[in-house]
């Protein structure tokens, strides 16, 4: 929206256009395109030849016509010669145009590919907090649309601009050679087309804004109504809804009729101006031919027709060029959004960080403070010690900081104050990759990558043998259902026919961890989306997995964590209570309240 507005504003005052283009971004783009500049230049040179050859055809048509003077007075050889030249020019023009387009498009495609790959690679390197602070949709839009716009606006529009300018310059040269006085008429009259088109575009803008707004509100209403259709029926609200939609539909019809109509006056008006220029050139040319008589080298009937053809061709690129400017601005805006990400620093990792820590499973958390937003404190003075092999449950209402705690354990975020250590080493002195290797993580959302079941199990250890993979699956109690899938371990997880249930997916995730066999585990609401009977099956997998491993379990359902060695009850970022199930029930505190609300 802002983008369109700026484009629009740029249209209103041409001089302002230049100052609005972000030169820093343009420079960066040019630097990135450096390797291709030679090829771009080559393509443009080839396109230049093609355009000149095609323009030359019109002169030859005029010459051929001039060879046909009257009955019995036709210079057949002259006609033939012109035809041969036309044929040669056509061939050159067609082939060169094709070659030039192929080169340019290839560069454009390649640029898109390169940009996408470096942006994607960047996403893999920035901090998790950076990714959390952007919606996936926003990132994807940069990766797909913005980059597409860069190639459209920078390379293709540039080529279009170039051929437009060459065409204008070429037709001018040819017209000047034919008759300079008539050329002046064309030269001064044609830019009017441009101004008229601009004027209409600017005055239509408000109708388009209104149309966009009406359309958005209608779309929302439709979305809401269709999504809620069962509710509409349950409460007999259909009649009122229909009236609302009708009203919004009529509003949209009015604004879109105006927008469509006013914008569609551009072409006829352009044609009107060109028609008048055509008439003027025709009359001036005809009068010149009459006055000159048969002065050699003067304007002839045939050449007048060539001139008319040039006059028409001369006016065409102007509208295209104004479109190019808008495209170019779009490209710069898109490029800025892409550079914003590309220039984000990689996640910081101290140089002397250790990468070889193999934890025995002891985790110590001392006086930890953390918040995402400095104004809203979240975790305060958090202390916890997990001894190797212990099971620690973290419970509490939504928003109490359970998931944040996991983020800190995994070093997705670093603590603001205090420290977390693994077997005595501050985890900030260990590389993130190394911290991650020491944990196995199962989240509420199962994460499977497109690929086979085997690939997904082997994800954490790509070199695993089939035997090891099957062994892991057996331990996770996944083997028996996997072999029943259409292609066994080679079944694609996205395969609709295989129809993996949520529980089965979770079992594959467990098998994956069985294979990597990390010393510590994190289960973040891992079973909360499963119904309790399926959960029994999945839980027996979890039990196997947790044996001998330090485990952190975030749970919603208290019945599942009763036997943990420690239960940490969190409320509003602080530890409210801490102890075993029995101890906590004895307390008559928040835990007891939670527990009882779930069990009566």
């Amino acid at each position, binding site marked *: 929206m802002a983008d369109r507005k700026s484009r629009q504003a740029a249209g209103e005052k041409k001089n302002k256009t230049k100052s609005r283009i972000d030169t820093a971004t343009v420079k960066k783009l040019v630097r990135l395109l450096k390797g291709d500049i030679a090829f771009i230049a080559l393509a443009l040179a080839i396109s230049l030849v093609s355009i000149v050859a095609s323009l030359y055809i019109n002169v030859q048509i005029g010459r051929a016509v001039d060879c046909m003077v009257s009955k019995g007075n036709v210079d057949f050889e002259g006609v033939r010669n012109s035809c041969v030249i*036309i044929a040669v020019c056509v061939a050159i023009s067609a082939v060169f145009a094709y070659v030039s387009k192929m080169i340019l498009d290839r560069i454009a495609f390649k640029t898109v590919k390169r940009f*996408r790959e470096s942006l994607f690679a960047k996403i893999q390197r920035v901090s998790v907090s950076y*990714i959390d602070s952007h919606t996936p949709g926003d990132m994807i839009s940069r990766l797909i649309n913005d980059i597409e716009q860069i190639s459209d606006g920078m390379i293709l529009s540039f080529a279009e601009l170039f051929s437009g300018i060459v065409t204008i310059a070429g037709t001018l040269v040819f017209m000047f050679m034919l008759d300079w006085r008539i050329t002046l008429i064309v030269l001064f009259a044609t830019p009017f087309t441009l101004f008229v088109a601009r004027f209409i575009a600017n005055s239509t803008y408000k109708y388009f804004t209104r149309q966009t707004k009406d359309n958005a509100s209608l779309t929302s209403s439709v979305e809401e109504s269709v999504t809620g259709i069962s509710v509409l029926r349950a409460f007999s609200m259909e009649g009122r809804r229909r009236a609302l939609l009708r009203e919004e539909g009529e509003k949209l019809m009015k604004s879109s009729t105006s927008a469509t109509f006013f914008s569609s006056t551009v072409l006829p008006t352009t044609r009107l101006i060109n028609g008048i220029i055509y008439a003027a050139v025709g009359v001036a040319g005809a009068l010149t031919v009459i006055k000159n008589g048969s002065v050699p080298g003067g304007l002839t009937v045939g050449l007048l027709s060539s001139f008319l053809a040039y006059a028409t061709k001369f006016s065409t690129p102007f509208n295209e060029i104004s479109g190019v400017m808008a495209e170019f601005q779009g490209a710069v805006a898109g490029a800025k959004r892409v550079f914003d990400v590309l220039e984000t620093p990689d996640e910081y990792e101290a140089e002397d960080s250790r990468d070889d820590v193999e934890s025995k499973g002891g985790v110590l958390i001392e006086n930890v403070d953390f918040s995402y937003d400095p104004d809203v404190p979240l975790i305060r003075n958090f202390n916890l010690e997990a001894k190797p092999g212990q099971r620690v449950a973290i419970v509490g209402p939504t928003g109490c900081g359970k998931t944040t705690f996991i983020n800190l354990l995994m070093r997705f975020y670093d603590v603001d104050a205090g420290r977390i250590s693994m077997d005595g080493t501050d985890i900030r002195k260990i590389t993130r990759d190394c911290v991650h290797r020491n944990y196995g993580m199962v989240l509420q959302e199962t994460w499977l990558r497109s690929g086979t079941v085997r690939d997904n199990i082997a994800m954490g250890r790509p070199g695993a043998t089939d035997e090891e993979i099957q062994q892991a699956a057996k331990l996770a109690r996944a083997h028996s259902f996997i072999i029943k899938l259409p292609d066994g371990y080679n079944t694609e997880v996205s395969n609709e026919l295989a129809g993996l249930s949520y529980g089965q997916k979770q079992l594959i995730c467990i098998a994956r961890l069985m294979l990597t066999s990390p010393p510590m585990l994190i289960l973040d609401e891992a079973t909360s989306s499963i119904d309790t009977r399926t959960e029994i099956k999945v839980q027996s997998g979890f039990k196997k997995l947790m044996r001998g491993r330090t485990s952190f379990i975030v749970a919603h359902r208290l019945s599942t964590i009763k036997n943990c060695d420690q239960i940490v009850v969190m409320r509003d970022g602080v530890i409210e209570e801490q102890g075993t199930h029995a101890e906590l029930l004895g307390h008559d505190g928040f835990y007891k309240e939670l527990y009882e609300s779930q069990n009566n």
Partner: protein
Amino acid sequence: MFKLIKHIKGYRLYAFFGPFLKLLEALMETFVPFIMSLIIDKGIKEGDSGYVLRQGGLLVLIAALGWIFAISAQYFNAKASMGFGLNLRTALFDKILAMDMETVDRFTIPSLITRTTTDVTRAQTGLNMFLRLILRNPFIVAGAIIMSGVINVRVMIIYIILVPLIALAFYLTLRFARPFYKKITNLIDSISTFCRESIIGVRSVRAFGMQNKECADFGEKTEELFENQVKADRISALTTPLNTLMVNGCVILVLIIGSSFVNGGRLLNGSIIALVNYLFQILLAVGRTATLMESFNKANVSSARIKEVLDSENTPLKSTETASSAETVNKTPGDAECPYVPAEGSESVKEATSSVSKSDAPYVSFENVSFSYARNGKYALSGISFGVEKGSSLGIIGGTGSGKTTLVNLLQGIYPATEGRVLVGGRDVSGIPAAELTKYFSTVPQKSILFAGTVKENILFGNPQATDDDVDEALRNSVADEFVYKKEGGTSFRVEYGGRNLSGGQKQRLTLARAFVRDAGILVLDDSTSALDYVTESKIRKYVTSGNTRASTKIIVSQRISAVSVCDKILVLDEGKAAGFGTHDELLETCDTYKEIWLSQTGDLGEED
């Protein structure tokens, strides 16, 4: 597109005059080369400056007339196509409102939304493009061919042969490139999905140290896209050079034939120029049509998708009693306003005139009911029988996919039973008009759905007659008061489209309030406390199971034992079959499935097996 053309109703005159004026405009344009040839052959040849000036004036006049025709045509065309869009949208919406749920499921809700919005926009833009841009081209081709015939009939015959050949060449390049473009679209989709998964799963990617593998996989995808783009380009980039070759090939032909005609005295050279110009006009028009057709195709795809919805038929109802009740429904005045309500539909969209008074509150029973979704033929429910006394409560429990929601849908007549009968208040639900049936129920669906408007308006949907006190009470009972009154404006707080400015738990509490305020005999809670924390849930449960609700009969669907254990009767569902029916204590004794669920929810994860 043209199969939908009856929806231009009300805008026919516009749709006629628009193209007609376009035709006039195109004719004006084809006069131009002819007049120019007159200037050359008469004005210049005879040295008559006055004639030249007069003809020049004529050219300006023609341009001006053309402009007037064109502008009026654009106006009519805009009116016609946007009116067409409005009609389509209305027709679609009426159709969807009258659609039974099986048909809705078949299309899926997101698809119905796209069809009513994006597809209609494409269809109306397509129609406008057709009237405004595409139609102009055949007019010009026809005009140019006729005018060339005025000059020389033999050359005209060449043109008539050439036009289809050129069109064919365009068609072929488009056709051969199309499979690649289709592939490109799919690849871009798959790249976008891949990125989404990678970004959403960022924690998993990092936990497994898969960053490099992700980049490599991504690289493979972009490489494939690149290769396909180059291949598609190789073909589609042929269009322009081919055009150049054909245009100028024809020019050469005309010059050679023309030169012998001039030599034979059959033509003047001014006419040759005109003929060449007509050639350019024809070829440009054909070229333009070809490029426009490509975008027009999109509109056609959209039109087909719209037509599919408009032509869809509701799944026929099986019950014999349907016919008689459908008749009464069809007599409801006002049906004439919405012609898209299918005649056989008992799903009347009119609000029922009869009302159910509280005194004849119903008694619900299922008699050997089975149900299969038409889409896969599998039984979602089979052989279900049970009864609920008026004023009592029924709990329904079972795992995911056990048929709980299906049962609730059958009860409310949203789907018709495949076999057996569902009775409410002693009447078969398939014989009760939808609008009347809804009066029996006050439902809280699994998914919380709210509408744009104030909190109060949303609650009032449940009961338009409710007073402010009623609303307050309902908000209190659904524990929604604590957040509603903190919002700016309290109950006048504006809920945005679909409730997107509220959290899941807040939305759920409002949908509960909306049901609590309703005067209906049966309160149905379909797993509708899933987004609430246990404390809030237990407060709401206490209210629901108290005697204070407006509805005396309650049906509570849940996966949690704690939610149903206090009900008078509990139905245990397992894979579509009734695994048990009775009180909590009875079921613990007799029903293994129930016992298993109970154990799983009160048992312990930590226990070694």
